[in-house]
C-alpha cells in the first residue's frame, strides 16, 4: 500500500515527474561519462601496453621509451644478454627514426621503426607479410595514401634529408610487402617499419648497434619486478620500466583528466540530488494534510519515511537506465571527437565502458536517490499532526 501511495504521488503530477526523470537522466549520463573518463584512458593505455605481452621496456638511462631521441648503445649485446636469461621469452629491439620519400614534386616524410619482424610488437599486419629481406618495409594506410603506393610496389626512401641543400642521404629502394596498423602511433601518423639492420644502415654510422627501445616478454610465472630490478642492476646504461611503472607514469600525466572527471561527476551528482530533493519536497508540501492524516490514523513514522524515500529512489531508478544509455551514446560521440586529437594512438579511448563504471554510477545514483529523500521524508514524518491539520482546515 505504501508502494501504491508512493507511485501514485509520482503519477499524480506526470509532467513534473517526467521532467525530473529526464533531468536526473542527463545528470546520470554525465556522471557515467565522468566515471568512464576517469578510468578510461588509464585502462586504455593499460590494454595498449599489455596488448603484445611485453612486460618490461628498456630505454636509455634516465628516459622514458621514445620520450627523447637518445638511443641505447651496444644494443645488440644488451639484447643478446637479455635473451640469454632463462626467464625471458622474447626481446624486441626498436630503433626510431625518419624516412623521407621523394615524390614527383614534393617530399613525404614518415616515422620509421626499425624492428626485428619475428619478435616485433609495434604493429599488426593487415595485408601482405612481414618484411623478411633487407630492403623490404611495411607501411600504414596514411603513408600508403601519401605515397600513392600499395603492397607490392617499390619506393625510393632516404633516412636523411637536408632541406637547404635538398640532398638525401642513406637512400634505398624498398619494396612494400605489407600494410599494417601501428599499435602505439596515431591513425593519421604516416609510418613504416623495416628491419632494424636496414634502418641502421640507412642512418649511417651514428645508428650502428643502437636501439631506441627494447621490449621484453617474460616467460609465464616470472616475477616482473624481480626481473626489472635484476636487469637494471646488470645493465647500467638503461632504464628498465615495467608496465605497472609505465602506468604509474601515465596516471601522473592523466591526473588532470581524473580530477576534472571527479569534479564534473560530483557536480552532476549534486545537480541530480538537488533536483530530486526539490521535486520530492514540493510533493510533500502539497500533501501535508494527507501525511498528517496518515499519521493520525496510526500509520507509523517510518512508513511515511519509507514512502517518501521510495518516491525519490524510484525517480533515480527510472532515470538511471535512461541516463546510462544516454551516457553511452554521448561517450561514444565525445570519444570520436577526442580521438581526433593529434598524436594519440589509434586504440586509445577516452571513455572506456566497463561494467564496474556502470555499477559505480548506478550505486552513486541509488545512494543519492535515497539521500535526496532524506530531507523531505524527515519533514513529512516529523510534522506536528494537530497543528498541521488545523492549518490545512484553515487553508
Amino acid at each position, binding site marked *: *500500500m505504501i508502494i501504491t501511495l508512493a507511485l501514485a504521488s509520482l503519477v499524480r503530477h506526470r509532467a513534473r515527474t517526467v521532467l525530473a526523470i529526464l533531468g536526473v537522466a542527463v545528470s546520470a549520463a554525465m556522471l557515467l561519462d565522468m566515471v568512464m573518463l576517469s578510468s578510461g584512458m588509464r585502462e586504455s593505455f593499460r590494454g595498449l601496453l599489455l596488448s603484445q605481452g611485453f612486460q618490461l621496456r628498456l630505454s636509455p638511462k634516465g628516459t622514458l621509451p621514445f620520450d627523447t631521441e637518445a638511443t641505447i648503445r651496444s644494443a645488440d649485446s644488451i639484447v643478446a644478454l637479455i635473451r640469454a636469461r632463462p626467464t625471458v621469452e622474447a626481446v624486441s629491439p626498436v630503433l626510431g627514426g625518419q624516412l623521407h620519400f621523394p615524390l614527383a614534386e614534393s617530399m613525404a616524410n614518415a616515422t620509421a621503426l626499425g624492428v626485428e619482424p619475428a619478435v616485433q610488437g609495434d604493429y599488426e599486419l593487415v595485408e601482405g607479410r612481414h618484411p623478411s629481406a633487407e630492403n623490404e618495409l611495411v607501411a600504414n594506410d596514411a603513408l600508403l595514401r601519401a605515397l600513392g603506393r600499395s603492397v607490392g610496389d617499390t619506393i625510393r626512401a632516404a633516412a636523411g634529408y637536408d632541406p637547404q641543400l635538398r640532398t638525401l642521404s642513406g637512400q634505398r629502394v624498398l619494396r612494400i610487402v605489407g600494410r599494417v596498423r601501428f599499435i602505439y602511433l596515431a591513425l593519421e601518423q604516416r609510418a613504416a617499419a623495416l628491419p632494424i639492420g636496414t634502418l641502421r644502415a640507412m642512418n649511417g654510422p651514428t645508428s650502428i648497434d643502437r636501439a631506441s627501445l627494447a621490449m621484453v616478454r617474460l616467460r609465464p610465472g616470472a616475477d616482473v619486478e624481480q626481473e626489472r630490478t635484476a636487469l637494471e642492476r646488470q645493465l647500467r646504461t638503461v632504464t628498465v620500466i615495467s608496465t605497472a611503472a609505465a602506468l604509474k607514469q601515465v596516471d601522473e600525466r592523466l591526473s588532470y583528466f581524473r580530477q576534472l572527471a571527479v569534479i564534473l561527476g560530483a557536480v552532476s551528482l549534486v545537480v541530480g540530488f538537488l533536483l530530486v530533493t526539490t521535486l520530492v519536497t514540493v510533493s510533500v508540501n502539497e500533501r501535508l494534510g494527507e501525511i498528517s492524516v496518515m499519521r493520525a*490514523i*496510526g500509520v507509523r513514522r517510518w512508513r511515511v519515511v519509507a514512502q517518501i524515500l521510495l518516491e525519490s529512489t524510484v525517480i533515480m531508478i527510472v532515470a538511471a537506465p535512461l541516463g546510462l544509455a544516454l551516457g553511452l551514446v554521448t561517450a561514444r560521440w565525445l570519444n570520436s571527437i577526442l580521438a581526433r586529437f593529434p598524436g594519440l594512438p589509434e586504440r586509445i579511448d577516452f571513455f572506456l565502458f566497463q561494467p564496474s563504471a556502470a555499477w559505480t554510477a548506478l550505486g552513486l545514483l541509488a545512494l543519492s536517490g535515497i539521500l535526496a529523500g532524506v530531507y523531505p521524508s524527515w519533514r513529512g514524518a516529523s510534522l506536528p499532526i494537530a497543528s498541521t491539520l488545523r492549518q490545512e*482546515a484553515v487553508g
Partner: protein
Amino acid sequence: MTDIVDARGLVREYRMGEEIVHALRGVSLTVSEGEYVAIVGPSGCGKSTLLNLLGVIDRPQSGELSIAGERVDRLNDARATEFRLRRIGFVFQRFYLMQALTARENVELPLAEAGMAGTERRDRALELLDYVGLRKRERHRPSQLSGGEQQRVAIARALANRPALLLADEPTGELDARTGAEMIALFDRLNADGTTIVVVTHDEDLARAAKRVVHMRDGEIVA
C-alpha cells in the same frame, strides 16, 4: 459503566508570536463506554484542541488523560501512534481519504498498518463498506464518490481496527443538509451498535442527536 475517556485538568497553550493562546484551561471530562457526546461552542473555544488531545495527536502541557484505561498524556511518538492505530478512530471534516487508493484500499490502510493479512483485511474492509452502505463502490476512488460517500468511507476507515473511541471533527461540515442528515443517522446507528463517539460540531442537528452535549467557551467546559 467503564469510563472510556477520563480527562482531568487538561491545559494546552500555544505560542503565536509573542502571544500565548490558552486553548484549554484545565478541562476535565469523562465519557463512559457507549456514550455519544457532542462538544459545541463558538470557534476558538478549544473544542478541536480537546478533540486532538483525546485523539492522542497532541499532548497537554499539564493534566492527566486516560483513554480506555491507559494513560496517554505522556506517550512517546511510537506508542502514541500505536495507540491511535488500535484504540482511536478519526473522522475529519474534509474526509482526507487517500486519493490514490480505492474506497476499499482506504479502509484497508489502518488494517494493513495493524498487520492484518491480505484476505482477512479485504473481508473486513468489505464488511465495513457494507455497514456504511458502500459495498458496491469498493473499487471507486475518492474522486468518483460524492462528499457523503467519501465521509462514509472515512467512517469505515475509522472503524477498521474496532476502536474504543470514535472522534469526529465537524463530520457534517462539508455536507449538504440531506447528506448531513444521513450522516447523523449513521452516527446514531454506530452508537446504537455500541461505538463510543465524541463529536465536535457546530451542527445543531448533529449536537441534538448526541446523548450528551458539552458546551465550551474560552478553553473551559461551561455546561
